[in-house]
């Protein structure tokens, strides 16, 4: 065993010396290879982290949501509509929700204005999300003046800022008193944007949704499981799109790697001929080439993956996040909880390391089984 280990150590020694002799070429290949792994791993880590955040956070959303439709368009629910629902077996609470959008022409940002029925701020006070505070430069105690669609100026005092950790759901949120919300949008007290139903037994959600549809036919019911499925599908789709874009880079790299790995240069063929002539057998040459492929691809994989991990979880995916933002002026800070999916890690590792390593073996084997004299003379 010791003999085998020292033999491998000598082979690695020789391989590294050979790579160092072709320094520029080896380094170039390593940089491009690590760059491709970085791109793929960043996409994978970013979408995986967003998917697990969405699952964990949205698991606290209301079980059933009720929207009213009128002539195919979203309309407001009224207290009379909620009264029509009456008491539903298995539903512990029905709560009308008041929320709406406000476009701020000064900053070109759209805010979500919300007024919870309970635990809302006092009259004239607001709680604001991290994104709003960042865009408007707000801190606790500051005032925020918003001009409503009717033209009136409404001034609010910032009572609380939501933390950057909640940015993913609350970046654009302004929470206010229901009376302030009604005054701002000029809507009566008994008007709701939609309604949230709390269901005691999760198994009854679908039957309760059907009952709701029967009692108020002009409504649309959205279940929490549908919300969760939507976000799962969203990140699958987005990951697919990013990977489709990245596939061009991968294809370019594959051509480069194939060219580098599968075609031996004249010098490399001569080197193999000399090694054979001084006593190396075919197995030694192949082991040396295997080490060459493993060292380059392994180093590129670990450097690329480590870079991607730091990029996504330390620098908030600064290079790929702009693809998310579109025209949004106000966007969340992507403070993501680090998570690495073992299956994705292994798949990426196998797909990047294995093909390159194997591609280095075939031409080396062909050169190694040829007569050393012919190889050195370059007659084959």
């Amino acid at each position, binding site marked *: 065993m010791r003999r085998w280990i020292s033999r491998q*150590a*000598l082979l*690695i*020694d020789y391989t*590294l010396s050979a790579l160092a002799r072709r320094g520029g070429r080896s380094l170039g290949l390593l940089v491009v290879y690590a760059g491709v792994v970085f791109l793929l791993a960043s996409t994978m880590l970013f979408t995986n982290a*967003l998917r697990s*955040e*969405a699952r964990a*956070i*949205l698991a*606290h*959303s*209301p079980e059933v*949501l009720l*929207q009213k439709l009128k002539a*195919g*368009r*979203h309309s407001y629910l009224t207290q009379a509509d909620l009264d029509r629902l009456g008491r539903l077996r298995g539903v512990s609470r029905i709560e009308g929700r008041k929320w709406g959008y406000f476009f701020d022409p000064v900053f070109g*940002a*759209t805010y979500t204005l*919300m007024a*919870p029925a309970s*635990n809302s701020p006092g009259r004239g006070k607001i709680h604001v*999300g991290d994104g709003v505070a960042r865009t408007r430069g707000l801190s606790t105690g500051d005032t925020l003046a918003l001009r409503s669609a009717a033209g009136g100026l409404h001034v609010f005092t910032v009572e609380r800022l939501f933390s950057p*950790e909640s*940015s993913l*759901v*609350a*970046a*654009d*949120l302004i*929470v206010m008193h229901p009376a302030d919300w009604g005054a701002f949008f000029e809507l009566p007290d008994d008007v709701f944007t939609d309604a*949230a139903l709390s269901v005691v037994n999760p198994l009854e959600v*679908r039957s309760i*949704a*059907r009952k709701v*549809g029967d009692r108020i036919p002009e409504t649309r019911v*959205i279940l929490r499981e*549908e*919300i969760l*499925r*939507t976000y799962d*599908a*969203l990140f699958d*789709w987005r990951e697919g799109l990013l990977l489709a874009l990245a596939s061009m880079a991968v294809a370019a790299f594959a051509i480069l790697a194939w060219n580098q790995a599968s075609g031996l240069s004249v010098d490399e063929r001569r080197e193999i001929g000399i090694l054979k002539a*001084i*006593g*190396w057998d075919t197995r030694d040459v192949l082991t040396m080439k295997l080490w060459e492929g493993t060292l380059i691809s392994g180093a590129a994989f670990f450097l690329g993956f*480590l870079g991607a991990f730091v990029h996504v*979880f330390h620098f908030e995916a600064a290079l790929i996040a702009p693809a*998310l*933002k*579109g*025209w949004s*002026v*106000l*966007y969340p800070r992507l*403070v*993501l*909880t680090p998570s690495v999916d073992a299956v994705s890690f292994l798949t990426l590792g196998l797909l990047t390391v294995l093909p390159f390593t194997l591609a280095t073996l075939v031409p080396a084997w062909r050169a190694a089984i040829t007569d050393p004299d012919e190889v050195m003379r370059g007659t084959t």
Partner: protein
Amino acid sequence: MVPVPPDSSSTSGPPLHRFRPIQALGIALGVLAICLVAVALDLARTRPSRAEAERLTSTLGLTDLALVNEARYLRHLSLADLHSPFQDHPVALEHFPAGAVIAPPTHLRVSARPSAPPLCR
């Protein structure tokens, strides 16, 4: 066979200590391990908490992630309907850039309808 280097002890004079490439590889692996430990420690120290996001979602009944807010059907994706991206106009085009990279809610897709009938319109 791989040629074995001559034994330095058999030659005269002090032994030659050559810096071997495998030692450089060992150092590189050590540096990589230190980097990994540093990254892990840093992330453990600054590990973000989902507690406030979960509390807000629960108390305010939030339904969507604030990933994109350039259009209402992208900000509250799960509450959108099929018409809003086209501005309620029969031949209008959906023109927000993020709309191109965000798929419609699963419960609005035609393939999803038979399995979940009267709830989804």
